[in-house]
């Protein structure tokens, strides 16, 4: 029994060692970086844009690692050097590792994200926003909005307790902008909750599995599936402006990256991003093709 145990232990130790050896080999020096993406489409489209621009303008070669489960996972992967770049949203990143100081001010929140994540703990360069925010938005079927006369989240009062709500699982645990805080701000609670993978909430509300979904505002399925967004009339959700974020180490090794992605900043807006997302989520196109076509249309790529 003891012998078996020591064999198992040594195998485990060997595995950990070889795994950590693998991950440290791709640390971003020597002209190559890895971009990580979250599970939803726009992060994949943006990653393809960064890749195309960086490879077009520098000698750096770029890998893309898709479908990291959540934003904090991508940030931790950057911190440990497994990836060097990702798209981040101010409110999401700050509330996971810091605390948002001015939740109603997008400019101040962006400034805070730049400062907090440039510190020793992370040492990231947080770029200006690509031009839009992907915020949380409650969505109901058009027919239900008409039936109950819903325009704002406050209109749900007295109706929410008979409704089933779908949202991404982590919303339950978020401090500043999660379900507990939401219940306090709006003084309403859903009858049933169904936390699930974010990509499924749109189908769930369309197929009437649930009555209301907490959507991402740039998702084209809101329009494609005839859903109505309820206005966040108490401004509960903080800003979620999207920015490319790169580790300072990768920038020091490959200074050309900043200039390469610069043309992208400030160029998108919520509607444009929504349209690009729709080409993938509704029309089934490849994120890479969508990204390259956009860059060519904009003259950023030959």
């Amino acid at each position: 029994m003891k012998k078996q145990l020591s064999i198992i232990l040594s195998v485990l130790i060997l595995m950990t060692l070889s795994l950590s050896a693998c991950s440290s080999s791709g640390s971003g020096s020597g002209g190559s970086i890895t971009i990580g993406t979250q599970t939803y489409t726009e992060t994949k489209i943006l990653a393809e844009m960064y890749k195309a621009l960086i490879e077009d303008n520098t000698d750096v070669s770029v890998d893309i690692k898709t479908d990291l489960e959540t934003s904090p996972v991508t940030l931790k992967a950057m911190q440990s050097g497994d990836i060097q770049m990702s798209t981040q949203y101010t409110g999401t990143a700050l509330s996971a590792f810091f605390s948002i100081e001015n939740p109603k001010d997008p400019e101040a929140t962006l400034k805070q994200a730049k400062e907090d994540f440039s510190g020793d703990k992370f040492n990231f360069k947080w770029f200006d926003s690509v031009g839009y925010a992907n915020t949380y938005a409650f969505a109901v079927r058009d027919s239900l909005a008409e039936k109950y006369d819903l325009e704002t989240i406050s209109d749900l009062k007295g109706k929410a307790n008979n409704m089933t709500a779908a949202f991404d699982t982590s919303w339950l645990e978020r401090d500043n902008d999660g379900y507990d805080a939401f219940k306090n701000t709006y003084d309403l609670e859903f009858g049933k909750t169904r936390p699930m993978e974010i990509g499924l909430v749109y189908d769930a509300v369309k197929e009437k599995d649930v009555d209301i979904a907490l959507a991402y505002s740039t998702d084209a399925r809101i329009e494609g599936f005839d859903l109505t967004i309820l206005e966040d009339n108490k401004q509960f959700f903080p800003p979620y402006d999207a920015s490319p974020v790169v580790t300072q180490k990768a920038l020091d090794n490959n200074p050309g990256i900043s200039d390469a992605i610069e043309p992208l900043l400030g160029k998108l807006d919520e509607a444009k991003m929504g349209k690009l997302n729709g080409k993938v989520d509704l029309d089934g196109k490849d994120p890479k093709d969508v990204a390259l076509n956009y860059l060519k249309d904009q003259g950023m790529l030959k």
Partner: protein
Amino acid sequence: MNDYGYLSIFSARANDLLIALGEHMLITFASVMLGCLVAIPLGIFLTKTDIGWIRSITFTITNVFNTIPSLAMLAMLLPLLGIGLVPAIVALFLYSLMPILRNTYAGFTSIDPHIIESARGMGYSTTQLLFQIELLLAVPYIMSGIRLTTVYIINWAALATLIGAGGLGELIVSGLGVYDKPLILAAAILAMLLALVADFSLGKVEKFFFKSAHSTQQQN
């Protein structure tokens, strides 16, 4: 950001942890139970039938279920069954079929033909033979199939949260979303403990049946 650590979380979030544990046990129990209800009679039928291709087709189909990655299985059931508890239980039920079926089949075919012959000689009818002798002798095999399945299903049930079925996976995924390490670890530990306890207690049951089967065999 959280007012709990790796240990205090078990009291601070006791309610949430217990609810998730309960959901996890419900998903596991329901799918294994359904698996038994289908796979045990089916396995017995397969040992009795003379038609070889039914046997090979049944084994092939249940084998194929087990080769589908669990995430893909959930995704494939979505358009058919939607979200929530039902598709999660159906997916895990499909996984439970193969081990229970195989072990039931092995249990019945391993019975010494002499025992069956002598029982027939003593005037046992086919039904009596099945319930009083064969099933008793095969139960240890069936139980080890159930035990194996249960432990696997406890693991796979952690994915059920992705389609809105809750369980301990929900706390793990939401913990990932806000980088709440104590929460991730606490839920993972509970899932591990659940698997260990299930393995241990089903092992006891298996042993008990093995002993009683052994004495049945000796009596004959």
